[in-house]
């Protein structure tokens, strides 16, 4: 079955910042994104766990977006500007998709 090479950007970001990131992705016209819940984690800023947390601060969410290799740079730049001073990480990896046209 024919598949097409695309890129997947994974963004771990603080929950309060989520809406900002999604808006940014929208503004850059990505074809879509998905938000996954995150249970716990540890980074240079220490460990955290969602259990018991009431407010949004302190918890992180994971956003991934599949897009065309050509657009990665254009999205990564402002994205990084947005999250650079925040807690979180950004990774990029290769994926293949079945409906190539769907992901721009």
């Amino acid at each position: 079955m024919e598949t097409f090479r695309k890129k997947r950007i994974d963004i771990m970001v603080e929950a309060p910042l989520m809406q900002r990131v999604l808006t940014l992705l929208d503004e850059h016209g990505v074809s879509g994104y998905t938000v996954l819940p995150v249970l716990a984690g540890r980074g240079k800023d220490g460990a955290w766990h969602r259990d018991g947390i009431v407010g949004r601060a302190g918890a992180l969410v994971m956003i991934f977006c599949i897009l065309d290799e050509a657009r990665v740079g254009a999205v990564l730049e402002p994205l990084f500007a947005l999250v650079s001073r925040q807690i979180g990480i950004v990774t990029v990896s290769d994926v293949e998709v079945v409906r190539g046209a769907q992901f721009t």
Partner: protein
Amino acid sequence: MSALDLALANLLSPMVLFFVLGVVATLVRSDLTVPESIAKGLSLYLMLAIGFKGGASVAEHGLDATLLLAVLAGMALSALIPLVAFQLLQLTTGLSRTDAAAVAAHYGSISIVTFLAATQALASSGITFEGYMVAVAAAMETPAIIVALWLAKRGAPVAAGGAGGAAHGSKGMDRETLREVMFNGSIVLLVGSFFIGALTGKAGLAAIAPFIVEPFKGILCLFLLDMGVIAGRGLRDGAKHMSPGLIGFGIYMPLLGGAMGAVAASLVGLSVGGTALMITLAASASYIAVPAALRLALPEARPSIYLPLSLGITFPFNLTIGIPLYVAAALALH
């Protein structure tokens, strides 16, 4: 009822004991936790209940002329306390300007659970209070944040913006962030329930009392168990970041804020109960609305400083020792 009786009655209330249980469980590294969605559900319940009851009592006792005064006084406190806190932090701790401003914001704003615990303490001592104190609580959440951001920016331009700024090219707290702070879920539910309670009054309260009145104390216990777990975590993880100066601040600042609250309360002319609650609000430190706002508007400020301080030091202090003290003070002032 003497201050000591109050203190003992408070310390031996199921509420406080469940909080302690939560702290202990965390310190012995038990896996006792309340799932996030349950904790969120409980807090929705508490907001709905306290807001509705406040509104219903306003509907019953009519709109006391002092309502507006009390709200304004609360906002003034919320704006002034950070200024004091900021100065003290700069003098007594080595915190950066940004971190100091962030911590200050928490103490200007309020903790609704501390407020709830105080209302219960009043109830068990048979002291009534103005229903609209809930509205005062809501009004006190935001001003502190704005003042603190202004403090952080003065002479520290780099602190400006953060995600908000980056996203909108503006400085400090942009309109979007302000909107998010003012319309955060807890506030909207609290204020909305207040209005619904005021609109439906006695009849409305009667209809849903078996949900929001009778089981309230018990549900608060479960919530405080969770708060204890989080506070314990804050203590454990935050200990390494906390200097004696900072810990001291976490204990004397509520007293100082409470004193300012007492002054405001007597200027406004609140009842004994109202005074106790105004003191409690001034003394309490936020750990929900403010942290969320600061992550957006002041990302350089370290959560590892302000969260443990507010959750691990000040909240437990207020819950155990502070509240009876504030009630006693209110009694002494009348």
